[in-house]
């Protein structure tokens, strides 16, 4: 993997500028770090007896953080015009609300079916 200036065919095409890839690798390390941390939690939640809902909350938050980095950096969205950013972000925010609502409904159904008629 290139870490800086790479030799390229500049003879017939004119000057090709040097790569500017530092920000790409920065984001990669952040994503790798967050994913490794998620795995760490997944393996230690048993021995450490972590609260299940806290673990789920942390996973969801970290996933959203990773999603932010992928969409904003890799997909370049943070450099786009605000109107375009909002056209993408706002519907996704509503979907996130939908997911949360359905998880809550799911636990309600569980409670009604399995707990209420004991």
């Amino acid at each position, binding site marked *: 993997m*290139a870490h800086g200036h*790479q030799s*390229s*065919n500049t003879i017939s*095409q004119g000057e*090709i*500028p040097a*790569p*500017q*890839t530092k920000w*790409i*690798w920065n984001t*990669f390390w952040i*994503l*790798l770090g967050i*994913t490794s941390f*998620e*795995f760490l939690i*997944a*393996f230690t939640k048993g021995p450490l007896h972590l609260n299940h809902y806290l673990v*789920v909350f942390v*996973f*969801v938050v*970290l*996933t959203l953080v*990773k*999603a932010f980095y*992928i*969409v904003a*950096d*890799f*997909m*370049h969205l943070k450099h*786009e*015009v605000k*109107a*375009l950013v909002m*056209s*993408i972000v706002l*519907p*996704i925010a509503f*979907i996130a609300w*939908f*997911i949360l609502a*359905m*998880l809550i*409904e*799911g*636990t309600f*159904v*569980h409670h009604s*079916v*399995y707990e209420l008629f004991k």
Partner: protein
Amino acid sequence: MGHSISANVDDSKSLWGGGVEPLKVSYGKLMMWFFLLSDAITFSGLLIVYGFIRFSHPVFLGKEFVTSQHYWPIPDHVFTHIPFAHINAPLVFVGIMTFILIMSSVTMVLAVEAGHRMDKKAVEKWMLWTIFGGFCFLGSQAWEWSIFIGGSHNGLKLDDGSIIHGASLIHNEYGPQLFADLFFFITGFHGTHVLSGVILNIIIFYNVVMGVYEKRGHYEMVEKVGLYWHFVDLVWVFVFTFFYLV
């Protein structure tokens, strides 16, 4: 309506009057963004259903986990295999798959960056790595499916006494039937997107090699398929979290 002919005037009267790009991106790129938004809604539907069904099932509350049809399985007790070794390695393989896909996303960004500099050779190199990563992921997912379908040595004894091995759309050794159904549908739907992404990348790679974009003067097509590829990676991040970790 004041019509300004110059395309770079950024006042609201002429911004939406036609002839300019209101959101400062090309038609193709904008439509890719909106397609990805609609695809995100589709995947969200599947993941929302998964969350709803999963949380409406009982969870295992004992000490030593065994698979049963009566409660939702614990993923790190189901997905424990890695190739070439007969050891218990919970979630290791799926971690490797996640790493492969994130790496291929990185190589895709590097290809786009090279495209901005009109560096044809670098675009070819990074796109090849991305395609390779995509194939690795597809192979890994196929292997994961084969292990899941094959089942464990002991299988599961059902309430009526019969023993079943592995999982399919009609029986599931690891837990309730819906767990297997959702696994196949969600990872299958995602895998299909990875496959179509790899095919698109191959087509665009061919175009890059043929000099189509060099002649055109910009590598925006690489950027557009790059957006699709990142979306595929993004969906995997969510699928992996909700299916394997939560």
